[in-house]
């Protein structure tokens, strides 16, 4: 089963066949053998600078086509995560000591450094299964399940989607729902929101397993716009309810005049935090809506893939995502695909940098950088080729950069000079093999 070369016999035959049938072929042959199983595999390295998160991941997606357009896909991903992530506490001109999430020991961040929680060391195993089949002539039904397990997190989800073709299958309208149930077994127990970080050994403010439920609806239409162009439009609605707080994120309690973190009296003989920190608190419900549009356009062998997403939620976060890829063939079997992605979001209404000592506590507060105001830019390139036996290989290298701004009104006292958004630089390297 190979292609290429130009045989003299087949060329002669093609000409003679046209003469015999009195026509020219309307479209060239497009045939492909379906193997019993197709495997998509990938190795991923994701690494952030400054010893922040590093992730190595292996993924396998096995798909099987059956007669009559029935289809099964099984996926498995294993992630190994290490590194540190901003805890939410702000940089100080003095060293700060924190109790670890486990409540069993402390760690200290040197003066003038961003406090990072370095206890992240986790392995995540995720599985997906999907079944698709036609229902009658014009409908396609798809049902799936997903599950993942981390040391402190368990996820189970179900989804179903139905699509109907119209207009000689040039238009497809689809609707899907997904339900998920996640259990959070935070290390040491999830803290009571806005309760203080306590001494080593004191787990009085810890709760048992927390959970959240997520309900997603997606409706969409895909439309063939012409011989070279296809488009997809989606609207999605997502409602998450339950424990949406990050059990490991904290907020510094600061002096209302200076903006410095308030020191905390130490209990003699017991290790504990050097300053006042509160565990963050988020609403127990979040409704997100998004519009997504994608266009794929073929132009003289090159394929442009452009997509845009607008998202807004009732935490007052708004985001825009623009994604551009251009697949540039190099000969028959190689291609280069530059990729550019721009993302921008506004901060959540309860996003804050610190809490002022003595003031009434708000109901919700978080200094999670992911709820802040920032732009993200991804730039990268993928190089893919077909091996001699018809398998697909690709490597991609991308750089991801987050640059944020803290709104001035959130800064107290001298924070304008010392506190800044924890910018992020990360590299994404992925190797994929399809056989």
């Amino acid at each position, binding site marked *: 089963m190979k292609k290429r070369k130009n045989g003299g016999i087949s060329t002669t035959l093609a000409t003679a066949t046209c003469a015999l049938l009195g026509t020219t072929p309307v*479209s060239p042959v497009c*045939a492909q*053998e379906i193997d019993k199983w197709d495997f998509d595999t990938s190795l991923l390295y994701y690494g952030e600078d400054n010893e922040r998160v590093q992730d190595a991941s292996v993924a396998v997606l096995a798909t099987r086509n059956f007669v009559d357009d029935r289809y099964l896909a099984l996926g498995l991903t294993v992630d190994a995560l290490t590194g540190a992530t901003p805890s939410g506490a702000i940089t100080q001109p003095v060293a700060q000591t924190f109790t670890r999430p486990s409540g069993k020991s402390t760690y200290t961040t040197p003066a003038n450094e961003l406090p990072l929680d370095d206890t992240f060391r986790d392995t995540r195993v995720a599985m997906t299964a999907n079944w698709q089949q036609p229902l009658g002539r014009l409908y396609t039904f798809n049902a799936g399940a997903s599950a993942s397990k981390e040391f402190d997190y368990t996820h189970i989800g179900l989804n179903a989607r139905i699509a109907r073709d119209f207009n000689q299958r040039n238009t497809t309208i689809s609707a899907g729902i997904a339900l998920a149930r996640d259990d959070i077994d935070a290390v040491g127990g999830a803290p009571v929101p806005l309760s203080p970080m306590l001494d080593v050994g004191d787990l009085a403010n810890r709760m048992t397993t927390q959970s959240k439920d997520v309900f997603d609806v997606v409706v969409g239409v895909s439309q063939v716009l012409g011989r070279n162009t296809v488009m997809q439009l989606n609207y999605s609605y997502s409602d998450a309810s339950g424990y949406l707080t990050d059990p490991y994120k904290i907020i510094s309690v600061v002096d209302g005049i200076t903006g410095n973190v308030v020191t905390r009296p130490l209990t003699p003989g017991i290790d504990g935090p050097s300053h006042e920190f509160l565990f963050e608190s988020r609403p127990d419900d979040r409704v997100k809506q998004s519009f997504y549009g994608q266009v794929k356009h073929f132009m003289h062998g090159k394929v442009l893939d452009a997509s845009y997403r607008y998202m807004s939620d009732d935490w007052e976060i708004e985001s825009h995502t623009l994604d551009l890829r251009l697949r540039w063939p190099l000969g028959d079997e190689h291609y280069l695909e530059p990729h550019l992605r721009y993302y921008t979001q506004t901060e959540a209404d309860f996003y804050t940098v610190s809490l002022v000592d003595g003031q009434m506590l708000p109901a919700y507060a978080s200094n999670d950088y992911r709820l802040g105001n920032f732009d993200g830019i991804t730039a990268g390139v993928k190089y893919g080729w077909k091996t001699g036996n018809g398998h697909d290989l690709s490597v991609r290298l991308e750089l991801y950069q987050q640059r944020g701004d803290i709104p001035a009104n959130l800064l107290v006292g001298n924070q304008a000079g010392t506190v800044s958004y924890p910018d992020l630089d990360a590299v994404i390297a992925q190797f994929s093999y399809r056989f």
Partner: protein
Amino acid sequence: MLLSPSSAIDSERPPRVKPNARDVELARHGKFWRVTFPAMGSPCELLLDTDDRSEVQALAGIATAEAWRIEDKFSRYISGNIVDRINTAAGTSVEVDPETAGLIDFAGLLYRLSDRRFDITSGALRKAWTFDGSDRLPDRAAVRRILRQVGWHRVDWASPVLTMPSGMQIDFGGIGKEYAVDKVAGLVREQTSSPCLVNFGGDLAVTGPPGRQDSWQVGRESLQGSTALPVGLIQLRSGALATSGDTRRYLLKDGIRYGHILDPTTGWPVDGAPASVTVAADSCVQAGMLCTLAMLRGAEAEAMLADEGVQYWCLRA
């Protein structure tokens, strides 16, 4: 649908002339309408991606009319048709119509492309060979005798006039089915934009993919000839597929397997031919002829197909 290998070269099919056997059936088949009817000794079907039953009926009428027209015109079992007139001309010249002339021109080209192995006058060899799995090889002298009446080079073809020595016979069995598939597919395409698959006994062509991302799925038969489990699935979005070969037709003597592909230059089976060859090409005629030419190359079948740069699937016993 399942693609069962058909033998292009030596199609010794039982005569089928009874007009009342020409039944057409229409039925729903999954997402498609399916039209089935017999023609050219094979079960034939159209699969139509449409909801419109009246359209299906109209297309069934057009397709069967064309299939049966070609069968009636080119079957060597029907007396009075052009093939019969040529075969009974006893050495006199016969002037043929343009369609027949086209087929003869095409056969002449194949004769050259195949180094004289594709030969529409080779049908007589079937009198000597019966591939029933036994060890009864024909008498060498008998084969030699028959070979005297085989050979396109003995025919005088000056389009549109054909003059053939008495006793020789021509047979379009090696082209007719693929030709009919392409003709029917062409007529369907003229009539409707609904995607259609035309399948005559495993030789097939499609007029377009059913749906934007979907493709027609064709099962490839296993070597054992079991139709229950295809060994593979071929997705066909456009173009055609043809299969040549029949794993159940061979002779076995002294441990040597004699496949059913006959080489008209020797009168004996081609050595080392694959059990079956499936080729994908723009048209069914091209696919079918590439199958046959590959088969006639014997052990070099795969090498030839690879050189030609076509998509193919070979099975060897």
